[in-house]
């Protein structure tokens, strides 16, 4: 009986081992055989643009609603920009604001009235409640007032009323002067929409968005994909593409796999090893550009050991940001950040970089001793799951250099925002990104009015900084003057040691070789068809 058993057991054990081997090597052998030279940056010589084809773009989170006043995620605004147009928009390199639906505009002396001249050849896409009628100033008034009053995320602040001057001319009246108004108008939430459609669809409007853009809504498959098709009466250049399909793939690696297996043509938000994978793949190329999002470690100004400025300085000097960034972003994707403002913003002043003290563990140890903690202390470092690598390395450095025991608290986004907003987090790592206008960074992160919200989680309160920030938006719309004021703000912030600036992230988009004229923008927004670009498929 025993002999009989042994033979059988052996046979079946072999089958199992082969099964495992197959599964294991599944990992290895899938590394692309061909590891050709990374083509990376330069654009293949594009022939004459061809019409036709549907561009499939992967987005890394599901679009819940496209209603301009209700959407919350950045991914939703990417779809909205292909369907609707705003009055003005940022240029490709975010350096200046260019005309879109508005051809020209002027600001009153008291900076409280902005008048815009509108294009007269703009038509809405045909929908259930209108058959593609002409856009008028009346529609602009309706859309902007709707946004200022009802937008959940306040995408148009401080607009008192919108006045229709003529068929093609409107004027915005502000409660008080705000130089950042134009920046706000570029937001996806301020596109012009037809009244009949909005009221017709009611709360279903989020799934049946109608605008004046190059593509119109075709199918909204909840949680799976959104398909758009070319809008015939588009006022701008005629799109080459027949349509666009945005597919939602939440798992980043799966997104890259989908690109490599041909499920999708363009992958947004490429991070980590996927960058290397795409660079190595012959029929893919990776376009990168320094982005508008920064990462930093916030130091609590009011509670815990970091109350004392010396301790904060010690911590800042004890974190080797260069090493951390290289450790976390092993395949590129970020560079050392010096200021609480991205380089892509016109407010960036590289001369201030020098005032940020370099990595010096000995001096840091000495400063910490002076601060009253010669042998370190125990604290907590709050972070959300996606930034665990940064926290792990930072905590390790603080332990090695200052013997500070920072217990890493990985928490849900909800818990994180609750703890930090209430100022209860001694240390936390967070990111920030908004429009290129410095106000949307410095005001949100350092103005005392923002204490209690996530931006000013460390409870920073400096009256001079407050005054400067208010003057920067109220006194002038001249960027040069505003830039000088923001420079002083950043100088003071740097001296008060509020942040330990970590990484300045870049925007990376992977795409198939046959995707031509696709312009990657620093604010990771997607413009497929406008004066500067008109994407086409070379296959």
């Amino acid at each position: 009986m025993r002999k009989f058993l042994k033979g059988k057991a052996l046979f079946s054990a072999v089958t199992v081992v082969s099964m495992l081997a197959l599964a294991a090597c599944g990992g290895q052998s899938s590394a692309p055989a061909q590891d050709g030279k990374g083509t990376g940056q330069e654009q293949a010589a594009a022939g004459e643009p061809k019409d036709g084809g549907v561009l499939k773009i992967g987005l890394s989170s599901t679009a819940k609603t496209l209603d301009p006043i209700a959407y919350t995620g950045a991914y939703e605004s990417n779809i909205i920009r292909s369907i609707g147009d705003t009055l003005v928009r940022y240029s490709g390199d975010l350096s200046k604001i260019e005309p879109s639906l508005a051809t020209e505009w002027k600001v009153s002396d008291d900076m409280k009235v902005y008048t815009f001249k509108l294009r007269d050849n703009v038509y809405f896409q045909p929908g259930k409640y209108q058959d593609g009628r002409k856009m008028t100033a009346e529609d602009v008034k309706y859309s902007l007032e709707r946004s200022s009053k009802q937008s959940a995320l306040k995408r148009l602040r401080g607009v008192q009323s919108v006045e229709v001057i003529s068929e093609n001319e409107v004027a915005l009246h502000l409660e008080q002067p705000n130089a950042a108004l134009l920046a706000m108008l570029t937001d996806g939430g301020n596109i012009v929409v037809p009244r009949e459609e909005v009221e017709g669809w009611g709360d279903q409007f989020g799934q049946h968005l109608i605008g004046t853009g190059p593509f119109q809504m075709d199918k909204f498959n909840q949680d799976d994909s959104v398909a758009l098709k070319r809008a015939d009466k588009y006022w701008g250049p005629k799109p080459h593409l027949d349509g666009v399909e945005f597919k939602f793939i939440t798992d980043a690696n799966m997104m890259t796999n989908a690109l490599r297996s041909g499920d999708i043509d363009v992958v947004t938000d490429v991070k980590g090893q996927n960058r290397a994978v795409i660079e190595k793949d012959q029929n893919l190329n990776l376009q990168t550009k320094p982005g508008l999002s920064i990462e930093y470690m916030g130091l609590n100004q009011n509670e815990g050991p970091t109350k004392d400025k010396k301790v904060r300085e010690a911590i800042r000097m004890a974190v080797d940001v260069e090493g951390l960034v290289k450790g976390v972003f092993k395949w590129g994707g970020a560079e050392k950040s010096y200021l609480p403002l991205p380089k892509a913003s016109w407010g960036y002043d590289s001369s201030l970089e020098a005032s940020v003290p370099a990595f010096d563990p000995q001096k840091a140890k000495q400063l910490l001793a002076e601060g009253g903690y010669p042998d370190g202390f125990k604290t907590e470092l709050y972070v959300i799951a996606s930034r665990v690598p940064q926290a792990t390395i930072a905590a390790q450095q603080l332990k090695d250099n200052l013997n500070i025991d920072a217990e890493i608290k990985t928490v849900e986004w909800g818990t994180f925002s609750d703890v930090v907003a209430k100022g209860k987090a001694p240390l936390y790592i967070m990111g920030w990104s908004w429009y290129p206008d410095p106000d949307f960074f410095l005001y949100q992160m350092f103005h005392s009015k923002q204490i209690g919200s996530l931006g000013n989680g460390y409870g920073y309160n400096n009256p001079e900084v407050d005054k400067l920030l208010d003057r920067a938006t109220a006194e002038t719309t001249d960027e040069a003057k505003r830039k000088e004021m923001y420079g002083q703000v950043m100088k003071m912030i740097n001296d008060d040691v509020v942040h330990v600036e970590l990484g300045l992230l870049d925007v990376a988009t992977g795409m198939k070789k046959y995707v031509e004229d696709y312009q990657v923008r620093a604010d990771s927004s997607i413009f497929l068809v406008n004066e500067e670009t008109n994407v086409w498929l070379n296959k």
Partner: protein
Amino acid sequence: MSNQAQNISPVSVPLAAKKKSKENSVWRRLLKNKLALVGMIIIAIMVIFSVFAPLIATHPPNAMDLANSLSEPGVDGHILGTDNYGRDLFSRIIYGTQISLIVGIFAIGLGGMIGTLLGLVAGYYGGKWDAIIMRLMDGLFAFPFILLSIALMTVLGAGLFNVILAIGVANIPGFARIVRGQVLAVKEEEYIEVTRSLGANHSRIIFHHILPNCMAPIIVYATMNVAGAIISEAALSFLGLGVQPPTASWGSILKDGKDFLVLSPHMATFSGLAILLSVLGFNLFGDGLRDALDPKMKV
């Protein structure tokens, strides 16, 4: 000598003289079962790894070396290569055994004890107790395990203790059901009625007679569920809710490794294999145990 029995002469007993108690027959039957043997060996290795982790591991598990992270297996002394922070993968997997064993055993211990108690009460007393407890268990069962754990973890926050609590709670209904079924069966046996006729009270009947006779299926179910618990810990870590960095758990290694599968799959593959083999070990041992404890099963 007439063939009529005289008075009560002690009956000649042809039983084999040597002492043959029940225990060693179970053990002997277990050893004869090849698959159970393999299972036991795997479990033994796991115990050795976790107890002697400091000796076996080649490097301190949390020592970072960012310069050569994700290096291939075998590169400069790292038997299985390094993870994305340059920490030695082999050492982290060895230390990971501790987490898996602790979670597996404590979670099932917690869930098992509470579940068995509830099952005993529901099965033995029946009536409204049975209805209440079983409705509660249905309620817990209706909660898909993953969601229950996610909810628990978000409330209590991640961390080893909370993982054990979440997985333990999720296992209570399973044990309650198994024990209740077993108690209902044993309760009908004649020797229970005999004990009642001798005047034994409820607690004696439950703990002296019913529980010992329910132990076999409970132990088998427990071993199987330790395997389940290890997978659950890995699943929770996969969703980012498991053990907190920098502690090494197979689930968290696998979760980190997932992002580098294409170019450096060794991280995910080896942690995946560790989970697979350990769970296989417990399942094999559980299977063998069930056959050994089941009197009808003749090997």
